[in-house]
């Protein structure tokens, strides 16, 4: 974790609901510049819901989410675009455009938001694809790539505009352990070398241990944050039995008993 704690995202008294059922109940936390923050929890605990609010897809029922001091939910069109240019998002299934090559996928945000000459865009796209190890695949369409490659290409697209914050939704879902570990290395490399801030939703324990500076644990029953801290610390010292179970990969009693 960076030594200087500068908060880049502030979540305050945030409540989320889905069809009038509360999913997240009055939670507050900060994301610090340059850290890799993992939002973890069991399936259905609202991890992806939190992420979708952070990136402005959904509006909070109550509370505020400030990204670099601006509230994405209430921002005007222009301000909202400025915020969105500064964040990159990858989705669970990659969400690459199937009819476009990797080159075109990564170039799209550059074409939409900058006035760079085509030659410059081409070079930037190649730089980004090289960073994720896909430079030689830039003329392929997503369906010609493996799942891990698609995830990496999605990260390259999310990074096209050099955002300060990258949001990744289940980056290692459906990947084998080796590919998943390679993806973890990529994320760590980007965080350390490019000083990017990562907010990652995952429940892959191996990934959490490998990349997380800090973990926020959500509980689907209380709909609140049950623990925050370094994964190694939570594993041993958490007072919450359920959190210890999660980090030690134990089944809950209803299931095992």
């Amino acid at each position, binding site marked *: 974790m960076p030594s200087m704690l500068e908060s880049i995202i502030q979540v305050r008294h945030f409540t989320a609901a889905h069809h009038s059922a509360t999913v997240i109940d009055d939670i507050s936390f900060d994301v610090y510049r340059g850290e890799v923050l993992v939002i973890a929890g069991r399936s259905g605990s609202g991890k992806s819901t939190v992420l979708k609010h952070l990136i402005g897809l959904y509006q909070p029922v109550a509370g505020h989410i400030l990204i670099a*001091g601006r509230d994405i939910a209430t921002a005007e069109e222009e301000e909202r675009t400025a915020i969105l240019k500064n964040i990159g998002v990858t989705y669970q299934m990659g969400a690459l455009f199937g009819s476009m090559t990797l080159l075109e996928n990564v170039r799209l945000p550059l074409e939409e938001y900058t006035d760079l*000459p085509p030659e*410059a865009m081409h*070079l930037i796209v190649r730089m980004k694809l090289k*960073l994720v190890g896909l430079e*030689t695949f830039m*003329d392929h369409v997503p369906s*010609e790539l493996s799942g891990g490659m698609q995830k990496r290409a999605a990260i390259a697209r999310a990074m096209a505009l050099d955002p300060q914050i990258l949001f990744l939704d289940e980056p290692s879902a459906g990947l084998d352990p080796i590919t998943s570990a390679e993806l973890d290395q990529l994320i760590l490399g980007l965080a350390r*070398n490019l000083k990017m801030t990562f907010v990652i939703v995952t429940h892959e324990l191996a990934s959490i241990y490998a990349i997380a500076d800090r973990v926020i644990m959500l509980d689907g029953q209380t709909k609140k944050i049950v623990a925050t801290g370094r994964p190694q610390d939570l594993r041993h010292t958490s007072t919450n039995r359920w959190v210890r179970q999660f980090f030690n990969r134990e089944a809950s009693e209803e299931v095992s008993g």
Partner: protein
Amino acid sequence: MTLATATQMAGSLTVHRTGENGTLTLVLAGRLDMNSTGSIWRDTQRVLQEQPTVQVVVEASGVSYCDGAGIALLVKLQQYQASLGSALTISGLQEEFRRLLDIYGQISIVPPTGPHREPVSLVEQVGKAGEGLWHDIQVLLTFAGELALTLVRAARHPHLVRWRDAWLVAEQAGVDGLPIIALIGVLLGLILTFQSAIPMRRFGADLYVANLLGLAMLREMGPLITAIVLAGRSGSAFAAELGTMKIREEINALSTMGIEPVRFLVLPRVLAAVTMTPLLTVFANAFGLIGGAAVMVPLGVPLVTYVNQILSAVTVGDLLGGLFKSLVYGIVVASIGCLRGLQTSTGASAVGRATTSAVVSGIVLIAVVDGIFAVLFYALGL
């Protein structure tokens, strides 16, 4: 740096030529980011092309921020000078940006090789198209065989059919399609009658327009418009529905559960279409004749005369022949819709292609089957 500084101090370029040997110094300052690098990029390109120089120095101590676009500019300058066999020195770049340059900088000048798409000759195109058509016919025959076997099995064991799905599809393809069938039927009757009544009136034969309309609607137009509307409404829907299931791997899930997709998905749809098409055709015929009456009565032909004229011209055989044709059209349209859905490859555009193909193939096959019926009916003297 917060987002607020993004607008501060846009990047700038100043050019100096110094020394006797003509060293070109490009002074870069401010923010080299996605927003400001575009104009600087164009300026540097112009300067370097106008004044090709052996020694170029980039003075970058004034650069306060540099993202991928700024690094790309530096990489481009390095590559451009290297291609001329000239030197480039970057001085004063902050340590963190120099590290970025090291990370990003090793981009080869040689463009990467992608999958090569060579132009295909006309002969090869024709050959491939022919091969594709032959393959398509084979698939169609296989599918027809599989469907026929499933139908036979379903006739022996009716509980194998998902009747609830069949009812639902029957409602969507049949009842919900009635208004459009009625509208098109009336309009077609109106137009046919009007177009033929005017010239035939010159011969005093306008009464026989009723005969013409009755025969045309019952034998040909009624079944045909019903089938085309069915292809557009339901064939496409079947293809889109099954295609989406295919790309979501639901079809694979069915197969691995030991449930044949043809029985589970295709059979209810085909059964529903087969029962609904003749019924819709009856309505299409009736509305077509009503449309005809709407023209004939104002032209001075009493309604009773119009009806009697039709009854004298058409036989039960004409009606049943038309209905039989519509039944076959129903099978064709529903089957091809389902087949195209099951053939869907991957990706969102594949569903679109499957849907288009379902409608186009459906209409083409309707025309082909209609032609076969025309010959068949003639040979049988019907």
